[in-house]
């Protein structure tokens, strides 16, 4: 498949406007603004079947339609570039190597949604991306792709980068909005949803970097051709970031619905010689781990849930038999504990509790009872938290305990890794 999202990134100057335009950049913006009405674009995005690439997979066109139906103005457009899900590094190449693709996607979205102000909420951990994005935005202003009179069509859209400061929870869209308002990034109550009352109480459309990067393609090839890429239920190109015990980790642009097996063994060159597969986390740390027998599962929003996991951000983490999964999950839980915002009781107290128990199992101080308590606590957190963070933490523990009970029991019995 021809690369779209990662087009031209081998070119060391790919982030420059001239290079981007040399390979057809901003052509789609021009045709969108000159030949289409905002309504047409929203309809096309709906018809394309594009689903949000941030993790939840909400149909983008539907989100846009809800926002466009709200009579309140101004409306705000926000790009979620707070890529914090461990294992995920797919947005980084777009931000650092192909920033104009993101900007073009956002300007088209702004035109469709009649937003005059946009922000790219960039995670604090990507300092270079900030420099690159800001210089790309400058270039776009100079060329008239941003500003008060874009392409001389009396269409106004101003864009700037807002840098976070290290909080995983800000990937949740309402927490992100709180953070953009200058406060602690604690999630807000929904409803109202951001599409109706987001930033400063105004309709706000929050989309992931990769989602915006898909927009120019939909304009270019039309919704029907787009819908034919990959899985018809959730089509389009998808970025998979693969890490862990494979020969060639990295970001791969493949059609939605590519199987895990193809990703791991064909594109990434398989495992290190002599090792066997122990488990795969398919969509970032907060998606449940899959056992090796699920390797044929297609990576999309439809098939992974059937296999007991989620597509999440499409971050594939591969573990071979040299890895102690108890240790992995102790570390994972340290992460969830550290990133729990503290707002709701089950997540704040429960993640710490689970980390405690996993820590005791890892260092050989646990009893069989502890595992029951762990399951109990996880069950109590599931479905009781304010936002998906705590749910995710409980979900991955339950999947781990259910699928790798032998390894846990071995730890408890022999006080060491198997």
């Amino acid at each position, binding site marked *: 498949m021809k690369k779209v999202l990662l087009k031209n990134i081998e070119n060391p100057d790919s982030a420059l406007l001239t290079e981007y335009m040399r390979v057809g950049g901003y052509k789609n913006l021009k045709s969108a603004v000159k030949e289409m009405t905002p309504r047409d674009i929203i309809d096309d995005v709906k018809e394309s079947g594009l689903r949000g690439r941030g993790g939840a997979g909400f149909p983008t066109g539907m989100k846009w339609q809800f926002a466009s139906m709200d009579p309140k103005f101004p409306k705000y457009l926000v790009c979620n570039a707070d890529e914090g899900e461990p294992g995920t590094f797919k947005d980084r190449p777009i931000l650092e190597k192909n920033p104009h693709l993101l900007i073009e996607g956002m300007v088209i979205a702004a035109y469709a949604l009649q937003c005059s102000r946009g922000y790219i909420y960039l995670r604090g951990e990507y300092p270079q991306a900030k420099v690159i994005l800001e210089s790309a935005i400058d270039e776009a202003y100079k060329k008239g792709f941003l500003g008060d009179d874009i392409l001389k069509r009396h269409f106004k859209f101003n864009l700037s980068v807002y840098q976070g400061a290290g*909080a995983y929870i800000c990937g949740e869209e309402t927490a992100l909005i709180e953070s953009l308002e200058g406060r*602690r990034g604690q999630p807000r*109550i929904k*409803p109202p949803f951001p599409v109706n009352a987001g930033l400063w109480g105004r309709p706000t459309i929050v989309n992931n970097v990769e989602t915006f990067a898909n927009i120019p393609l939909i304009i270019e090839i039309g919704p029907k051709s787009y819908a034919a890429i990959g899985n018809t239920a959730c089509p389009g190109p998808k970025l998979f970031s693969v890490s862990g015990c494979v020969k060639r980790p990295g970001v791969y642009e493949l059609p939605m619905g590519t199987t895990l097996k193809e990703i791991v063994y064909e594109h990434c060159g398989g495992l290190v010689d002599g090792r066997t597969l122990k488990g795969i986390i398919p969509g970032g740390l907060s998606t449940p781990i899959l056992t090796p027998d699920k390797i044929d599962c297609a990576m999309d929003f439809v098939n992974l849930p059937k296999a007991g996991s989620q597509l999440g951000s499409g971050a594939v983490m591969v573990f071979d038999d040299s890895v102690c999964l108890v240790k992995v999950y102790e570390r994972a839980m340290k992460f969830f*504990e*550290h*990133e*729990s*915002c*503290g*707002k*709701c*009781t*089950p997540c*704040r*107290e*429960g*993640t*710490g*509790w689970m980390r*405690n128990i996993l820590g005791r199992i890892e260092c050989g101080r646990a009893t069989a009872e502890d595992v029951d*308590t762990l399951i*109990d*606590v996880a069950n*109590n957190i599931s*479905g*009781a*938290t*304010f936002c998906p963070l705590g749910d995710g933490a409980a979900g991955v523990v339950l999947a781990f305990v259910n699928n790798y009970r032998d390894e846990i029991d071995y730890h408890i019995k022999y006080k060491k890794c198997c």
Partner: protein
Amino acid sequence: MITITIDGKKVEVEKDTTLLQIALAKDIDIPHLCWDDRIRPFGGCRLCVVEVEGYDRLLSACSTPPENGMVIYTNSEAVINARKAVLDMLLIHHPLDCPVCDKAGNCKLQDLAYKYGSTESAFKEEKKHAVSAESPFIELNPNRCILCGKCVRVCWEHQGVGAINLIDKGFNTKISPAFQEVLDCEFCGQCVDACPVGALGSKPFKYMSLAWFLEERDNICPYCSVGCTITLNVRERRIISAKGVKNKGVNNGDLCGRGRYGVDFVYAANRLTTPLIRENGMLRQSTWDEVMQYLSIHLRKIIKTKGPDSIGAIGSPRCTIEDNYMLQKFMRSVIGTNNIDSDRFGYAKIQQAVEMTFGLHTLPISLNSPLDKDVLLVLESDITSTHPIWGLKFIEAVQKGAKLIVMDPRETKLSKRSSKWLRIKPGTSQAILNGIMKAAIDKGLHLKNKRSREAGNLDALIQLLKAYTIQQVSDIAEICSREFTEVIDMFLKGERRLTAITIGPAENNKGLGTALAASNMVMLLGDGPQALQMPATYSNTYGMWQMGITPDYLPGYEKITDKPGKNIFKMLYEKGQISALFIIGEDPLITYPDLNKLEEVLGSLDLIIAQDIRLTKTAEKFAHIVLPAASWAEKEGTFINAAGIRQKVNKIVEPATDATPDWKIFRNLSRAMHHPIGMDDLSALKEKIHQIKLHIGDEKWNYVPVPYEEMDPPDDDYPLLMVSGNIMQHSGAFSVMSKSLSHVFADSFVQINEYDAEFFGLKDGDIVTIESKRGQAKTKVRISDEVSRGMVFVPLHLKDSRMSELYVAYEGFAAPIIAVKIRK
């Protein structure tokens, strides 16, 4: 209306609410810890989760709106299990130190654990240990904290302060001020009432009593004219502590620091316990029999030799209407004079202006008035200090989207929450109002309303306002004319305007002219008197006026046309006007201006009777007879708040030794003088008051144009304007008696801007002499950017400062601000 089913019962409900509110209204108990109807739902504690058909997750009732056809279970097995699980997690870090916790017995967590908790937790790790933060009133014990965040949100969203916050993240989160230092706030204590557990406690009440020994008794707060209901915790007939209780009183559970921490004045060390009599220049203990006989003889002698009009009386805005009614009854029928007045330096100006312009004898405010307005104008009034709980309504209005315009040289809580704040020169509100009127006339707004057009004196007003162009007013007020234009536009564009001004006796930055200009403006704009909110000052200022404590009105605002009495300016500031004076619940030497003059007049009188709950400065120095009065909480009676609402004051504890309710003292005295005035008991007195017909006057609009004048312009010798007022924690007589409140600020001080401080070579904490053309006073310097350049601010009513020596007793239109100089 939509229909939902809760626990099998179909109910009709409003759409715009939450499942929790619906359940609470139907007496269905859903436990909750982080919800409070004064603030936005938070959804954090997860105790209020309920099961809703069609959802696989449990939903938090506090944040879920009802939908038509929703089927809800509040007590299913899943719900109970979830509650138990949440409680188990809340108790992970709670120290369970209930035996030494003041909240025990009144703690929501304790109650819930009792109901749902298991006896053993599966949690086996160490509990966290955090350090506590302290302040004079509020103690923070983070180990007990369950992080519901209610205190933080009440402090910010409702109280408008933001003194505390959640600090750190996740598991390590704690409630703290910014730097873990002592809490630096206004000490309203609202966070303490909001705390469902014992994490926030009131220090003055610490270890005083466990909850189950306390009896709760409601009373009306003795401080300002809002008239909040405070719930007193009483143990063995002694007041231990005070709190606000949801759904009670005009305050609906809100309280300020004075109300919460200031009621201990009842137990002040300087309370009077017996009558005193002056002998050889010294006051000595006496008995009621002795003083009554003495008074009877001497008063009759003065009436006989010098006539009844040589005797005068001053009533008290802190006494009940029963007390004040009896005072005027005693003076008018037993003595035979109308020489009755009260502190004329504050609310009297409002009364006067209201009568001159609207033709009304009284104009109560409405406590909810800010809430339905779209633009609020506050002129040189620190409402959240003088009327704290009414002030909260302005903050609430801003939260709801109203625009708030503040004109004040001082930074106040409202200026911080305003849409626009102009730092005008002190005392120029009147010029500002004239400027707004001029702009309105230029826009033709005065022609829009028939009443505005037809009100008397319009031409004279238009004529006067010619001199008040935006530029001229900006020059007077020392503000930028462009900003002033913006503010005028913002105000005049409002569809529902409100203007608020306070004029308390301690505030010298507004005068009769200010109140008149504001009245002129609401008439000119066609908004009418209801759009002007000028509240009475103290708990019963309003009631005192209604009871005729004034030389020219009988009870019920009935105007005396034949022979009005002498007012305070005559009685206290002109020698030879009277020879005997009855002072009830006032301490003129501390709170009245022009101290030197006052001392001269008081020193010349033949008989001064001071009736009070404590030995006042005036009594100590000048009184011949001192009568001990029962304090608030030791007697029954009635206060009328600024909104004109009559509220019953309850007797909670027994009076200090011989102290007697004021009304009873007058009854006894009239008996001793062989001139009984009836009303032998309280019910007869109340019946009599009940029968008073109110003459509120016929509303007839009449403009009273008054040019802006500066009473005492600053010059090279006296370069600074001195503004006086109250601060959050002190409002005069009672607050300085309170041990807790005096703990925060006891000594007087003067606030000065850092630029001026540098110019005059002053440092924080320097003891300085402030001098005006009339006198001088010593006090301590506090450098603060709350005041602007060219001014200083002094809180009045703090003890031993002789600040009032600097002031002039002034009856004119201008604001009685004085120019001063400061030297070390």
